[in-house]
């Protein structure tokens, strides 16, 4: 092992294994996770060449092969618990990018949620065993997050009892669904339902795409790959054009129904689809935490190995992790990775708790959860997106090479900002809920849950001098007190947005125009709300940790997370009189102290994330720290070095030299 890393690990103030147990939920979870990971690590069927050296088509092929192997192995190993499936996939796919992934993450769950018992009987077994491979086709070339804008139509023909699926325009072509291009032979297609001459809005239809046996597109179906992308090379995101294509009465009919004669029966409640979305969003928040944790692991380990410049003349070059600027780049991100981990865990628990409620018909908590998770998905994915890039750049030039693994983590993560709801739209959904809650408080009703701080808003008593209203009692060394500061900020920004909205409404006729002209404020309010929730959840987590040494180190991370956020948004805290000038100066000072305090534990804190080298996919982030030797070896393996003199020398360079 590299000497620097050995020294770092020996000097840590806590045992990273203990922290791993907390992150996994229990020592038993950690044990089982490692057991599953070892199944893959030791299995020759899962070995393959470094993906960075393969072409897109080769990467797709490797991914399909691994998916096929995986289905077999999971049966063999008896892995069926959702968490265990995730551990398994996490390691073997590294990035979760798999062409048949949508079959499990969207096709089957949608079938389960929206299919009738008969439909489930018919499709579930074969799709679980991959006898059919399904995907989920919603987004269109010209339409994304705004579902009502989708153009694809499904017109019922009572004569033949068939639906006629049609893509009437170029913009209506289904675009982006994963696995659609080359892999899937069925899709659940979202389309505007027409029956008896009337449009009933979006419904889901099971549509066969490719002929069983030959895999050729069926007549009336145009299907293909949408071409190269930023990342997701392994995935055949596809397009689908349907030309008056007839299918049997395959609409998913658990809720809404079309009777054989074409009569439409309305669904009882439309809140139910919220459940799936909440689940996916909680998963995405967890993914944000994991991706950021990976990036931090790589950047921090490499910064402990890399030596550069001088701090003191005539002394050896120091580890770059000793530079204040490097600590300032990385440690707040490390703290963020922990914060988001706890947010993700909270969302998952809440989902499971509420999901039991859904089963028993209690839907009361769904709207808040749905609204909240939208904002948290946007908040965490935006932050993580920037943070992964910051980690990459903190590795200097080598971060730009695929050997660092960071470009890959970034391009795989960044779609999270746009898929499952574009982030700005998500923020505005949360804002809508915040505005509703604010109005409710105003009309004298109390609100509960994460927005209950609105109950305390002294709206009626707001003075021109805001400073007088908010007594500055913030203790910058207390997580509770900092949570309070974030709470005040959220309350104020929600109120400002609400008042600006009212002003715009009173100036103009249309509510929608007013909403648009306030949307920058509304997004700000949502962000402040989500920031508060994150600080609050991190702070609450501290109380539940028994181990004193771990509690101490997490407390420092929690303080750093909170104080760093204040320093970045100091304008809000100053303007609203939540903190004074001199407190802001103290905040800056305290951050620098915390950097020094965290420094000796930095490597142990990333070790605790417990990523296998394989899943980091990084030469810079290796556990053993032997970076340079392996970097040289890695480069030599690059296919470009296969011939000592490249053919273009003979074709172009030599003539260039002789002709001029």
């Amino acid at each position: 092992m590299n000497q620097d890393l050995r020294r770092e690990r020996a000097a840590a103030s806590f045992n990273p294994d203990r922290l791993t147990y907390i992150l996994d939920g229990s020592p038993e979870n950690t044990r089982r996770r490692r057991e599953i990971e070892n199944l893959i690590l030791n299995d020759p069927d899962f070995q393959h060449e470094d993906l960075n050296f393969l072409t897109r088509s080769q990467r797709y092929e490797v991914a399909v092969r691994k998916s096929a192997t995986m289905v077999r192995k999971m049966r063999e190993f008896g892995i069926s618990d959702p968490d265990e499936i995730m551990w398994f996939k996490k390691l073997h796919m590294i990035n979760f990018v798999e062409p048949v992934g949508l079959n499990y993450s969207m096709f089957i769950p949608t079938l389960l949620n929206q299919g009738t018992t008969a439909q489930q009987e018919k499709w579930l077994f074969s799709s679980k065993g991959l006898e059919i491979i399904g995907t989920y086709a919603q987004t269109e070339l010209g339409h994304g997050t705004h579902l009502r804008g989708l153009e694809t139509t499904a017109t019922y023909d009572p004569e033949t009892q068939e639906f006629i699926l049609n893509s009437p325009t170029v913009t209506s072509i289904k675009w982006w669904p994963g696995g659609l291009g080359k892999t899937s032979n069925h899709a659940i297609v979202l389309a505007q339902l027409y029956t008896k001459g009337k449009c009933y809005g979006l419904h889901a239809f099971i549509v066969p795409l490719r002929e069983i046996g030959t895999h050729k597109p069926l007549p009336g179906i145009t299907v293909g790959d949408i071409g190269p992308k930023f990342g997701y090379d392994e995935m055949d995101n596809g397009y689908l054009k349907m030309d008056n294509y007839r299918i049997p009465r395959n609409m998913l009919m658990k809720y809404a129904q079309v009777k054989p004669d074409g009569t439409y029966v309305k669904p009882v409640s439309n809140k139910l689809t919220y459940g799936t979305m909440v689940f996916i969003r909680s998963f995405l928040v967890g993914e944000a935490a994991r991706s950021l944790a990976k990036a931090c692991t790589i950047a921090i380990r490499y910064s402990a190995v890399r030596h550069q410049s001088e701090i003191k003349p005539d002394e050896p070059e120091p580890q770059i992790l000793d530079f204040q600027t490097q600590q300032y780049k990385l440690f707040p991100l490390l703290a963020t990775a922990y914060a988001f981990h706890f947010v993700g865990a909270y969302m998952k628990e809440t989902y499971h708790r509420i999901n039991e409620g859904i089963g028993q018909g209690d839907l009361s908590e769904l709207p808040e959860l749905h609204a909240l998770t939208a904002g948290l998905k946007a908040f965490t994915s935006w932050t993580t997106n920037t943070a992964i890039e910051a980690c990459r750049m903190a590795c200097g030039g080598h971060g730009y090479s695929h050997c660092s693994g960071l470009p890959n983590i970034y391009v795989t993560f960044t779609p999270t900002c746009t898929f499952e709801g574009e982030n700005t739209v998500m923020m505005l959904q949360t804002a809508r809920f915040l505005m509703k809650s604010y109005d409710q408080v105003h009309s004298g009703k109390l609100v509960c849950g994460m927005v209950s701080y609105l109950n305390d808003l002294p709206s009626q008593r707001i003075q021109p001098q805001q400073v007088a209203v908010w007594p500055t009692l913030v203790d910058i060394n207390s997580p509770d007190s900092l949570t309070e500061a974030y709470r005040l900020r959220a309350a104020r920004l929600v109120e400002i947005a609400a008042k600006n909205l009212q002003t715009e409404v009173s100036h103009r006729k249309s509510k929608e125009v007013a909403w648009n002209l306030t949307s920058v404020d509304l997004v700000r309010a949502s962000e402040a709300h989500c920031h508060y929730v994150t600080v609050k959840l991190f702070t609450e987590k501290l109380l539940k940790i028994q181990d004193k040494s771990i509690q101490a180190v997490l407390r420092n991370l929690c303080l750093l997370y909170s104080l760093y956020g204040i320093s970045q948004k100091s304008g809000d805290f100053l303007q609203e009189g939540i903190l004074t000038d001199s407190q802001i100066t103290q905040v800056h000072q305290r951050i620098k102290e915390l950097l020094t305090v965290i420094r000796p534990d930095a490597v142990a804190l990333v070790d605790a994330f417990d990523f296998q080298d394989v899943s980091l996919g990084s030469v810079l982030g290796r556990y053993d720290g032997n970076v340079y030797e392996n970097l040289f070896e890695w480069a030599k393996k690059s296919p470009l070095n296969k011939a000592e003199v490249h053919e273009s020398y003979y074709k172009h360079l030599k003539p260039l030299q002789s002709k001029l």
Partner: protein
Amino acid sequence: MDRPVHRVSMGDPWSRQVHPDIASERYTQSFDVERLTNILDGGAQNTTLRRKVESIIHGDPVFNLKDNYFMSQNERYEASIQKKFHIQKLAERLGWLEDSRELHYASRTLSGDLALGLHHIFVKALRSLGSDEQIAKWAPLCNKFQIIATYAQTELGHGTYLQGLETEATYDADTQEFVLHSPSITAIKWWPGDLGRSATHALVQAQLMCSGARRGMHAFIVPIRSLQDHTPLPGITVGDIGPKMDFEQTDNGFLRLDHVRVPRENMLSRFAQVLPDGTYIKLGTPQSNYLSMVVTRVELLLGEITPLLQKACVIAIRYSVIRRQSQLRPSGPEAKVLDYQTQQQKLFPQLATAYAFHFLANNLLEFFHRSYSAILNRDFSLLPELHALSSGAKAMVADFCTQGAELCRRACGGHGYSKLSGLPSLVTRVTASCTYEGENTVLYLQTARFLIKSYLQAQASPGSTLQKSFPQSVAYLTAPDLARCPAHRAADFLHPELYTRAWAHVAVRLIQDSVHHLQTLQQSGAEQHEAWNQTTVIHLQAAKAHCYYVTVKSFTEALEKLANEPAIQQALKRLCDLYALHGILSNAGDFLHDGFLSGAQVDMVRTAYLDLLRLIRKDAISLTDAFDFTDQCLNSALGCYDGNVYERLFHWAQKSPTNTQGNPAYEKYIRPLLQSWRPKL
């Protein structure tokens, strides 16, 4: 509207008709777009020349960029070598000289997708660091491509910090040769472009050892490949460093030197010489070795980095008037996404930045030309300021352009993730600029050192600022400062004088703070270097504020020169206002901190800022059209002039090799997976 043909020349049938949603944006223009293009080009004659070059390039199928997104790294490399080859032939035929406008325009037209870029960096370094005899010997060889050269500085274990480089050049007086050697694995040269497979010679930066002493970094011309068959010469291990985020057309390489001997004449000796007996003679300052890096940085701003953000803006803004999403009014049609305030807030600050950097970079280039000839004549008085300005500007421009291009990409939703949008390639290309030619944090800190020095100088002898020698870019350090901002209403924040002073105030305060922190630590007994390290975060902040101030100032000065063009001046002034105010809002804490701005004034800034978004909205397409990038050069299905986004995206996707070539994975894996299909399906 009558438009030059070249704008809509993708050759697609639907190009003949401009999409009504973008045509309507161009019906009523508040200024003459062509005039603005001329201004950006530095004169109408330049615009004409540029378009002439563009039509030559676009007329030749060899220069087509369309298939770039579908090519492997190997194919990209070969194509870019081929393009370079053709450009050289073309240049020879048409009499385009090295460093001529024509060749610059050709490179712009091809989005820099040309191999052997380092060859020209080598020539620049040669001209900066070489003696007259050396220039006379090597420059003609380079011009005729009798050798292909690169510039090898960075090592596997060492980057921006030059003194840390390990490669050694030991002088052997017996044979009058230098022995170049890589003593460890971390000393292997790593990253130089064109090194992996193309270059025959490298300008190697190495620690000079002569007469038993280390003399610091010097540059040596080292032959690395045979001029006969291109095989590596004895003692040379060379190759490609493997796949990267981008620059696939460039063979960034590694180079390991095993006691390789080169003649004494191969050390570049404008600023230092080694005599035959090994006597070392120094002719310049320690900084003179940085001169070639300064040259490169200044030219990168206009030639490489800023245009990448400009293109991202063109693509994202054009797409945002075609893309419709949700409704602004309940009964209305789906609205253009550019009509949403949140979309404007994402894109317009980027557009403003793209313009701001154009003027900043031009300013810097002028300053550079003024000081460069003096420096070559060994008058180094302007070098510190030039170094500080170019370091800070490079860091800031790289930083903001990277963030901005990525913002533009994400503002295009899902389609921004497709390579066919052109945006991923812009992002991966521009982001490299944050670490190449000096890592940004290190560069900002170099600017900070200069600021502190200037500040102390101004404090020590207040009269010195009146002297000519006091650097002009920091003259504001001693100008009378306002303690409070005098604004009373939102409109007051639209006065360039007011916001320029606001930025000056914040920069001065932060520089004061950073000096104060440093001195306090030193006085409390901290060692000088430790004190510096413990205060770098605040130095960084100060340098950033200074750079922002310099940018705002150069933008406002550029506006003053446009008095003859009131319509253009007005449109650009809004961008300048937006740039300044966006910065204030993003750093509101710094302005509120000492009470310079009150809370009420920050609200006024926000009001003024939101109003500007609305005003810029109607000029948005004209402002992006004015950059006058051809469709071929943008190479984006989303950003073409005609706005036919969806047809083009569908058409391009169908040409992807994933659709035109078979699917071997089906036969091998999918079919066996599906083997137990049931006929009833």
